[in-house]
Each structure stands twice: as C-alpha cells, then as structure tokens.
C-alpha cells in the first residue's frame, strides 16, 4: 500500500517535470526564432556608398604662411558631427602626405570626435549679435597628434586657423571652435598656440592666399 503523502509528492514531481519540459520547449523555440531573425538581418547586399560632395578645405602653407582654400570631392555623411570629422580628417590627411606644404604627422585619425553645441554668447554685442542657430564646435584631437606636431608659433597657428576655417567653410553655423586633446583641456598645441581659449571661426576664414 503506497502512503498518501508519497502519492501527493509523486504528483507534484510529475507536474513540475511537465512544467519544466514545457518551459524548455518554449525557450528552445525562442532561441530558434532569434537565430532565424539573425539570419534574416545578415548583410546580403553591399552597403551603398554615399555620393561624393564638394568640401572646401582651408589648407595651410608654411613657405609663405598662407591659408589657401581648396575644393575637394569626398563622400560626406549626413550627420553634421560626422561630416565635420570627415572634412577635418581629409584636411589632416593632406598635412600627413609626404610632400605636404604644412607637414604634420597624424593624418585623419588625429580627430577623434567633433561635438557641435549651441554657441554661448561670448563677445556678442548689439552691433555684432550672435546669429541664430550658432554652434560651438569642440574638436577632440589625439594626444599623439599634439605630441608629434611641429613646435613653433607659425606651424601651430596655421594648424589651428586652418581647422577653424575648414569648419566654418563647410558648416556655416559654426561660429566658435574649442580644442581638446584626448578629451582634456590642454594649455597649448605644441608649446605655443593657446588651446584654452575659444576661437572665433569668422576670424580664421581667410581670403584666397591671405595670411593668418
């Protein structure tokens, strides 16, 4: 004769086994669905390349301390921050070329991010009011770029002004530019050009062949 409590315990264990079996079956089904969904999202087509656009670069020249505008055709993303980084990357690629007129090692990877923020009202006056929608561009450079940058007032000033001018030429809403190195504020670029201040992009846009 089987005691009553053993019958109840057996029933509970049997019920628990059935519930666990159903749960495992459902989990298996979910995993299978996820796997199928992942297969559906696998890339089956090559990504479309963005069509090239005209970008204006303000390129420095050490031989006569000039800033010259050059128009290049390159693919630009729609996002303004990514677009700013792309044009600055192209500018620094030109400087990293072997026959560059303003040789600076580092290349396009020297700009890690460009943040676009609403521009604060610095120096705004009734005669020269801040334009609506004005933006402050915060350019984050790599420490290796700053460490390898040629030291000197002229080369550092030309680099800073060409970055400001290039941003202004491609993003007219950018009125102010600040610089970070590895996410931190730094006193100078390579011992001379002040990186603690806010640069006005309008001051950096040169005329063709103009001096800084």
């Amino acid at each position, binding site marked *: 004769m089987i005691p009553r409590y053993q019958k109840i315990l057996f029933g509970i264990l049997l019920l628990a086994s059935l519930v666990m079996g159903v749960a495992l079956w459902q989990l298996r089904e979910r995993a299978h669905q996820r796997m199928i969904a992942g297969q559906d999202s696998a890339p089956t087509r090559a990504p479309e390349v963005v069509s090239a656009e005209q970008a204006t670069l303000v390129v420095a020249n050490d031989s006569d301390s000039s800033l010259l505008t050059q128009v290049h055709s390159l693919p630009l993303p729609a996002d303004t921050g990514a677009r700013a980084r792309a044009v600055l990357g192209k500018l620094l690629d030109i400087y990293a070329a072997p026959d560059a007129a303003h040789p600076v090692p580092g290349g396009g990877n020297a700009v890690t991010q460009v943040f676009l923020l609403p521009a604060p009202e610095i120096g705004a006056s009734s005669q020269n009011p801040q334009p609506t929608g004005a933006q402050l561009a915060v350019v984050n450079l790599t420490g290796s770029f700053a460490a390898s940058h*040629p030291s000197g*007032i*002229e*080369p550092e000033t030309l680099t800073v002004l060409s970055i400001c001018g290039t941003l202004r030429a491609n993003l007219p809403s950018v009125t102010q530019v600040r610089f970070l190195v590895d996410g931190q504020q730094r006193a100078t670029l390579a011992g001379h*050009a002040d990186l603690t*201040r806010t640069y006005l992009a309008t001051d950096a846009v040169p005329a063709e062949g103009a001096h800084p």
Partner: protein
Amino acid sequence: MRWTSCFIAALVAGGLSGQPASAQAPPAPAPPPARFVVVLDAAHGGNDTGGRLANNQLEKSFTLALSGRLQSLLAARGIQVVTTRDSDATVEPDRRAEIANHAQAQACLSLHASESGSGIHLFTSSLAPAQPARFTPWRTAQAAWVTRSLALAGTLNSALLHAGMSVTLGRTTLPAIDSMTCPAVAIEITPERSADHQTTTGLDDKNYQASVATALAAAIVEWRMEAQQP
C-alpha cells in the same frame, strides 16, 4: 662719541657745500631722460624645452642665448633691459606677463625659434583692439595695446628687411603676450630658405644669430626715437 662725530661731519659737510642762494643761481636741473625699458622674454626654459632645432639644439637654449646677446647690444646703447629669465629656469606664462607689466616697458619682445617656415616671423596678439580701461581682464590685457604692438612690429619689420632678412607678419594667441600691458611682439626666428625650400642659413649659424640680434637692437633704437618724439 658717535653723536659727536656725526655732528662734526655734518658741520664740515655744511661748511663745504653751503653756498648763499643769492650768490650764484644754481643751473636749472636738466629734465630727467624719459624712462625707456625693454622686456626680453626668452621663451620656454626649465622643464619646458620648446621645440627641437637642428643639431639637437633646444629652443629654450637658443632663445636664452639670443636674449643675452640682445641684452648686451641694448645695454651698450643705453637702454634698460628687463629679462624674464637669465638661466634655464621654468617660468610660467603668467609670471612672464607679470614681470613685463611690472616693468612698465615701452617694448616687450618674446623670443622664439622654430625649424618650420623661413626667415623671421613677427606675431602680434590676435585680440581685437580695445580702449584702455582702469581695470582690464588679465587674459585679454593686451587688447588695449594691440595698436602699439602693431606699430612696434612695423618698426621691427623695417629693420629686419633693411638687414636683408625675409619677414612674415602674423597674428596669434600666445598666453604670455595676451596678458602683457606693453607693446608686445613675439619674434620667431627660423632658418633662411631658398625658393625651393632648401635651407640656406641655419639657426646654428653664428653670423645669422648676430645679424638678427643687431637688426632687432637697431629696431629698438628706432622705436625709442619714435617714442621720445613729441
């Protein structure tokens, strides 16, 4: 004893120097010469080596040597010179500006050197000119002096061109210069290069260094003459 000696000494001195005022009118004292002080700021120093020049020379050493040479030339011309450093010492930009502002100088020259570019680069502050005020912000104190700084750069430019050097004028943002309350110019000496960018005269050329210092001294003398004109 001590008081007696002093009393006798005073009597003797009075007797020797005492002249009746009515006997002979003393000559009118000549007006004191206008105080003319030049501040020489040898950039970098100490832990801040500055750029690395040809032959492994450091910018801080080059600027210190040029400052010493220029100081001698100016002193020989009767010009009082105040330097921001006379040794390989670290001097912060704010301290350099403090020294210059305390000297109330008529010209402040910040000396730099670089292997980039060609000839002599003359930089003035990129701050927008402003009217002098009783209280000015420290970081933009140079704004009230920008016009005079541009005039000083013009005088330096003329002297250097007269000495046969190529000169580039520019505006920049240097923390020390922007806080100075004097006509201030940053002078960056670079090698002389030919049209095909080949170095014709390096920074280690003693004659080149002497020529630059002589031209700068001549410019300061010219600047003093302009300053003393009514």
